[in-house]
């Protein structure tokens, strides 16, 4: 059997990708692991490696084609393997009803299906892999499955994928506005994605167990023009897992990444949340001259107390049901987190190796449920405009820690916000950032 070449999902909220270039022409041989083709999503450009060694045949997507995630774009035949007559239901010949989702642009919303299901479901592209449960869920919610990235074997769309898609759509509707610049990845030990724009770039460092995608609501609130640079911490999002012995080692790694990303810029604004706040503070202390302003949301490192139970609970949870109660502790009130949201979050934590790494990291960074690193001296040394934003209903880190620090910073206590104000009230957070910093 030939090996299928599938358009992979390279971004959490990616449903389609543009096939940019083939590195190997049809009929040529390719080695496993060699660059096969490039894809561009609305956020990133990525090189895709060949899943197998052999001859590339049955190429169904040409450069420039928009292709749904999970679509088979070619087949790789092993040496000496017989080539089937028509391995996939499409040929290079331009047939009018070429079944691969060639140019079907993602229909944003409002393609609600009538209650009666038509015989031939137009929501389902021929060849699209989806379980009956996923199909039923898509019908029930009026979405087309082509929009949904499949994470199952061979790109199969499963019920979870539909739930995650719906949850994400609720969370960040119409994320990619036409004018918004595309995200691109930068090489380096940590995954860094940046978006071009005009003005001083804002560097975002997420918190423990989050990832750079968690900034989406705030990014939207800040507008599409601002250049943004997001860093994924090791073992989070798309950064590789790297062995770490201490907070200081992690901070060094972040500073190195920051050095890389700020190379082309005179200065940057820096924003960190929770653990990312402590790291931003540490980085600003070391690289004071490169930072124009600093904003910290519910930063760690300003006192020993932390809700260790929630840390353990989140890192240990293997199912949405056990994750949800801890997620609900992140927000001011439990109703901030829906079951769908918890399911989507659990799906991102489905990899046991990721959970194990983060559990171990929690033990290293917060031994015995304590924050051993103290960044209060760093804060008092800062001479750049600095703002701390803290939810008054933060159940993870106590906002009162901010009251005992000396230093020239503005403190914004947000009523009705918990540990994640950038998700709970992104517009308000954006307003404060714009008004009180030079951002």
């Amino acid at each position, binding site marked *: 059997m030939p090996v299928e070449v599938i358009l992979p999902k390279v971004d959490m909220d990616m449903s389609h990708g543009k096939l940019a270039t083939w590195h190997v022409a049809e009929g040529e041989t390719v080695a496993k692991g060699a660059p096969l083709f490039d894809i561009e999503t609305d956020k990133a450009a990525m090189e895709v490696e060949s899943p197998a060694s052999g001859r590339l045949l049955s190429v169904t997507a040409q450069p420039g084609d928009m292709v749904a995630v999970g679509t088979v774009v070619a087949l790789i035949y092993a040496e000496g393997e017989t080539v089937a007559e028509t391995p996939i239901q499409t040929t290079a010949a331009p047939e009018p009803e070429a079944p691969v989702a060639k140019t079907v642009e993602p229909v944003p919303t409002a393609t609600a299906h009538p209650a009666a299901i038509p015989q031939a479901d137009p929501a389902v592209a021929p060849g699209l892999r989806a*379980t*009956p*449960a996923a199909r*039923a869920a898509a019908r029930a919610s009026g979405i087309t499955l082509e929009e949904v990235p499949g994470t*199952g*074997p061979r790109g199969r769309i*499963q019920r*979870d994928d539909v739930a995650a898609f719906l949850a994400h759509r609720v969370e960040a509707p119409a994320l990619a506005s036409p004018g918004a610049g595309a995200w691109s990845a930068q090489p380096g030990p940590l995954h860094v994605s940046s978006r071009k724009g005009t003005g001083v770039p804002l560097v975002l460092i997420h918190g423990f167990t989050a990832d750079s995608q968690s900034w989406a609501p705030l990014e939207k609130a800040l507008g599409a023009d601002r250049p943004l640079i997001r860093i994924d911490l090791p073992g989070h999002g798309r950064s590789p897992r790297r062995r770490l012995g201490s907070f200081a080692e992690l901070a060094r790694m972040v500073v190195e990444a920051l050095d890389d990303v700020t190379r082309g810029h005179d200065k940057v604004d820096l924003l960190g949340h929770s653990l990312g706040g402590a790291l931003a503070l540490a980085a600003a202390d070391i690289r004071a001259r490169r930072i124009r302003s600093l904003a910290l949301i519910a930063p760690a490192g300003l006192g020993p107390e932390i809700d260790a139970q929630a840390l353990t609970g989140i890192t240990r949870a293997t*199912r949405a049901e056990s994750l949800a109660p801890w997620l609900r502790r992140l927000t001011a009130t439990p109703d901030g987190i829906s079951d769908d949201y918890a399911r989507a979050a659990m799906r991102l934590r489905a990899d046991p190796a990721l959970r194990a790494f983060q559990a171990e990291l929690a033990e290293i960074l917060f031994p015995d449920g304590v924050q051993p690193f103290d960044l209060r001296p760093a804060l008092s040394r800062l001479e750049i405009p600095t703002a701390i934003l803290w939810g008054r209903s933060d159940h993870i880190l106590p906002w009162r820690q901010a009251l005992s620090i000396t230093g020239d910073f503005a403190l914004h206590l947000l009523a009705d916000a918990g540990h994640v104000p950038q998700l709970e009230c992104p517009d308000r957070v954006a307003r404060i950032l714009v008004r009180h910093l030079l951002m």
Partner: protein
Amino acid sequence: MNAMTETGLRVLSYSEAIREAMAIAMENDPTVILMGEDIGVYGGAFQVTLDLVDRFGPDRVMDTPISELGGAGVAVGAALTGLKPIYEFQFSDFAMLAMEQIVNQAAKLRYMLGGEASVPVVFRLPAGSGTGAAAQHSQSIEAWFGHVPGLKVLQPATPEDAKGMLLSALADPDPVMIFEHKLLYKMKGHVPEGSYLTPIGKALVRRSGTDLTIVAGSIMVHRALEAAERLAAEGISAEVIDLRSIRPIDAETILASVRKTGRLMVVYEGVKAFGVGAEISAMVAESDAFDHLDAPILRLGAADAPVPYNPDLERAAVPQVETIEAAARRLARREV
């Protein structure tokens, strides 16, 4: 099972439970008789009828010649005259010698005589592999009889069910086949006193779960339960259904579980192809539960070969705890 002992509940072995059911039935109903090869003084190939000839005499506990076709024929004839015979096959494999009587006579006579006659015979059939008895004495052929309208086909997995099912089979006016697993005869478990009926055609959820459904019968129930216990440590929640009856089959319990979990695995000791798993898979695929399936259905059955004599191969030929565990893990982790 130890827990049961500690609670002070009465514990019997599977074979003791079957023997007790036969004794109760014979005491309460003079028309109940036992027939089979060496079931008298010798106590049967697996000693299930031990001592019953002493209690009820050779007129009611009858040794029959080594002719399954003859013995089963006499049992069917006796049932037609109003007796309630329990015919023991030494090995379920030998039922093949009596196919004519079971399939063409016992199963069909009620239909062919317009409901004016019935054949209340019970066939007991020691089944399954694991005893080193090789290809002709280790099969699991229960699915064959699932294909025959007019029969009822049961597979008790516990001592309690073994007794209750036999009493239900005797209370049933039509032919009932009970496949007893040879490896379960010594298994101990709580068995209630006195007479009680285990409903025919009603599956039982032995363990409740949310991630996947494992439907199993006979000894596979215990293997599936152990696999589920191991998987629970990894956060995988498997629901285990004891099928108990192949014909009639309890669609309702299975479909309800699939609607809940979206993932189905069927584990059985018969050869995988054309087996119990095929029937259950197709039943789910044809039902409204189809729309709840979130993964392909998996079947775990015996290898496509006669049961080997070599002990390692014999073990490898049928689903074991480890194979069930591995398959269920893949299914739960969305790797299938």
